[in-house]
């Protein structure tokens, strides 16, 4: 399992392109099939980022798990359905 600390890239998840970048440049290039995204210390999120993240996650062949999602970030993801049930740990 590879763990990606998302807040080292950006603490504010604002743009669709940023979600694409996380997938194109990190997740899809990883040799691991199971990739863990650590959302610790992320502070804010837009609807667009959450939507693009979910689209890319649903299209990815990798198994992607999220950990340490702050409540405010999780609530936005929940709008785009089933992130919650795939989450290992929701709070930090």
């Amino acid at each position: 399992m590879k763990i990606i600390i998302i807040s080292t890239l950006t603490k504010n998840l604002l743009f669709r392109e940023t979600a694409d970048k996380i997938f194109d440049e990190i997740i899809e290039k990883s040799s691991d099939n199971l990739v863990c995204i650590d959302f610790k210390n992320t502070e804010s999120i837009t609807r667009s980022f959450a939507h693009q993240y979910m689209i890319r996650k649903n299209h990815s062949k990798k198994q992607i798990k999220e950990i340490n999602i702050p409540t405010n970030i999780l609530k936005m993801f929940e709008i785009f359905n089933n992130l919650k049930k795939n989450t290992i740990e929701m709070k930090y």
Partner: protein
Amino acid sequence: MSLLEEYKRFEEIYLRYKNENKIDFSTINFVYPSFILPLYYLTHGKNCKMVPNKQENVNSYIVSVLGNITGNKNNKSTLCPITFLPKDESLKEKVIEKFSSVFENGKYSGGQNAFLSYIGEISDNIYQHSKFSNAYILGQRYPSKKFIEICIVDNGITIPKNFEENKIIFEKDYEAIFNAINGTTTKKDFQRGYGLCSSINMIVKGLNGEFLIASRKGVVYITPKEIKTYEIKMFKGTLIAFRIPLSEHKLDIYKYADSKGVQIQKV
């Protein structure tokens, strides 16, 4: 003076500039971002006369806004100077975060979560759709008037032109804008097209603000009570401006994030 009146005042001064090749500030007593940013965007680098205002403080304010396009702000200032939205994606978050700091990270305009959400959403919309080569943002907090105003302009293809290129049918340009803020999109993914309307609902419905979009020959103006649409002569690009009354109320952004249309009655 409302956001719409401010836009109309910009348009009047700009049309006079087009006819007489001079920018006449003589009758202007106060300028807001929605007036000065489009004027800067459409006239900078062009050789024209300036008619100054009789009040020195108005002139010095205009000079301070127009003279500082570095994006650097004085730490005590309530003005975030004209700032380029960078094409380089690695820089754009930093620009928005810096911009946010002038507004105390949204402390008096919905809270940090809300502020970054609507400003990020509106900026992302420009990056996603407009194909701009130049885009600028300007904002100011007015502690005594008790509101913030933010204006963003870009020289991209405009909302009506984008719809035309994607064969989305409309009659008037303001209809294209109205449809865009109500979910019509050129993108095909499920649930796309609602980012702008969720931001408008946050600003207008949630924070009791005003919101204005001008794109090519159309204007849509939204207040908590109504949506108004207008035909205009021409705006070369797209302008988005909004005002939010200062308040410490923290907005529940999730109430608006799955909006499927602007929740205001059209008149």
